[in-house]
């Protein structure tokens, strides 16, 4: 790919991706290991007339990007474990009010203050269910610098297309490691702009009446159309309502608009899966380790393949089932107590063929960890 070449860390690749996608508003709060995202945007955004604000806390940062998004800005915040916990309240608001925005969580060890400067992938389920109430959510991840750049653009595109918050679940290793990044010319990677209403001024605009395709064209605050936005269940005007039929339909809409579009949202990468007897399922920094084990095994003519997940939520069940059901064994490689493993088990025909290779001590899962598990499962001894 042609373009501007840089040597950057993952957090910077995320910033480049956000700017490429047209991000022009960031609100945040300092937290390790995501702070570089805020630092870089504090410097980069004003150069293009964009806005950077350091808020009083993580809660306020999340609220501010929602408010800014309603005026038409493309908005981002970045955080890590404890901050991600604090953002859950307003994340639910963005889901309910259908406000496009992107939240980066560069994962570190938890619970609580945990292991601030070390790697973990233990917020997978928090991304899914961290905010209260039934809902769908989009969460994406990446294992290298180029992919972080591209998945960040995807995140903005999905946020705008589906009027939803999108979570980027990176981790301390991919956030801080450095690799080559190629930034293509603007226009080479599609950037999706918000669908705005074509209802003329003076005519009733219904901000929460989905079109037949489920999409809701927006109108910027400050424009001709005035409407109400609330975190309560609401009618097509955005006005609070607790009518059972309306509550039922809105819940259905919020879930269906995400879950019925797996082809547009679910991204995976496949390596040597067609004949794989052993499928490694992994994501983020762990997928780098898994890939090295796959390469090592293939050199020795062992049929090992890798399914790298880039979308974690909605969980790519069909793709996982397709490749795992034809394998003799599946090993999920991740840095937590088995959060994705449980999803893989729930997706496949033979859950007892699914094993976990994990690490949860703040160090990067290494090649020997995976090789050892592989050796035991294949019956080649300890």
């Amino acid at each position, binding site marked *: 790919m042609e373009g501007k070449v840089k040597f950057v860390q993952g957090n910077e690749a995320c910033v480049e991706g956000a700017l490429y996608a047209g991000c022009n*508003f960031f*609100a945040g709060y300092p937290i390790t290991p995501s702070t570089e995202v805020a630092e870089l945007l504090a*410097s980069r955004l*004003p*150069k293009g*007339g964009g*806005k950077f*604000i350091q*808020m*009083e*806390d993580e*809660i*306020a*940062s999340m*609220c*501010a*990007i*929602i*408010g*800014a*998004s*309603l*005026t*038409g*800005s493309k*908005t981002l915040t970045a955080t890590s474990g404890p901050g991600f916990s604090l953002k859950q*309240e*307003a994340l639910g*608001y963005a889901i309910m009010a259908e406000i496009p925005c992107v939240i980066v969580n560069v994962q570190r060890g938890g619970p609580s203050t945990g292991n601030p400067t070390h790697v973990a992938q233990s917020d997978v389920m928090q991304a899914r269910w961290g905010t209260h109430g039934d809902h769908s959510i989009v969460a994406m991840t990446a294992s290298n610098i180029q992919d972080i750049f591209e998945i960040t653009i995807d995140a903005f595109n999905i946020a705008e297309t589906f009027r939803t918050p999108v979570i980027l679940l990176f981790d301390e290793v991919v956030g801080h490691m450095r690799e080559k990044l190629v930034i293509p010319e603007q226009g080479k990677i599609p950037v999706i702009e918000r669908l705005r209403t074509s209802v003329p001024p003076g005519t009733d605009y219904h901000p929460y009446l989905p079109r037949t395709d489920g999409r809701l064209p927006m109108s*910027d*605050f*400050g*424009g*001709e159309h*005035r*409407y*109400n*936005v*609330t*975190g*309560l269940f609401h009618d097509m*005007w955005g*006005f*609070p309502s607790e009518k059972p039929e309306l509550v039922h339909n809105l819940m259905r809409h919020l879930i269906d608009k995400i879950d019925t579009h797996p082809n547009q949202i679910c991204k995976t990468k496949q390596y040597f899966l067609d004949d794989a007897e052993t499928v490694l399922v992994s994501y983020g920094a762990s997928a780098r380790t898994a890939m090295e084990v796959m390469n090592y095994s293939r050199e020795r003519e062992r049929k090992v393949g890798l399914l790298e997940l880039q979308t974690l939520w909605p969980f790519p069940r069909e793709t996982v089932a397709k490749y795992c059901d034809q394998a003799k064994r599946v090993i999920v490689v991740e840095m937590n107590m088995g959060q994705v493993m449980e999803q893989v088990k729930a997706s496949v025909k033979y859950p007892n063929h699914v094993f976990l290779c994990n690490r949860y001590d703040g160090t990067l899962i290494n090649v020997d960890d995976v090789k050892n598990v592989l050796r035991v499962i294949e019956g080649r001894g300890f």
Partner: protein
Amino acid sequence: MPVQDYIRKRFFPHIWCGGCGHGIILKGILSAIEELQLQKKDVVMVSGIGCSSRIVGYTDFHTLHTLHGRALAFATGVKFSKPSLNVIVPMGDGDAMAIGGNHFIHACRRNINMTAVIMNNRIYGMTGGQFSPLSGQGVMATTAPLGNIDYAFDTVELAKGAGGTFVARTTAYHYAEIVSIMKKAIQHKGFSVVEILSQCPTYFGRKNKMKGASEMMDFFKDRTTSIGSDAKKADPTLIERGIFVQKESSEYCENYDKIIEMASKGKES
């Protein structure tokens, strides 16, 4: 434009109890906007959660009904993203001063050009009459059945201490004062705080044996006075009304414009 044209009649009747002071405050805010001849499309009203926060839904502006205590944080995003908008943030006393206390002091400190209206009825009304940080000692509430032992914040002193550049107080009894203060607050360049004492006959009044709404409004008439009045000198327990602070100070969005200007010059570096 008549005041009723600023109302979304479609959403009436409102949820407030008979005798509640919030309707008076609603009309006071709308009259100020009307007298200033602001265009509806240039006004954004942002609120949190509680009886007071339902005010935004009834007004025909861009309205954002957010989370408990978070109104100022959402409003900061709106204003900073589009500084041309007039942002007004009505909040309750629990909303603004308990769960939203941190956002409140930082909005004061930041001096971003918005108007916060604290509709202070000294009680959590929507959840049924619990004491708030503005109730004060001795107040009876459902969570203080033997009397409240918590000291109260003084909104005016807190706003002054946090760097507020426009700080005022009035009451639901003093309608004309609401209008005149709100006009000045909206016109003020910077963060403006207007505390408006409001009556909640349903919970505060009943719990504290204050009879009905009219007796509670009599209290506002009898127990408040203009800043520095002779009455205050004679009886220091009276609550002062009026504009306590009104000063010029550089505003956040304008300060950031200077950052954009500086950053644009060094674009290539």
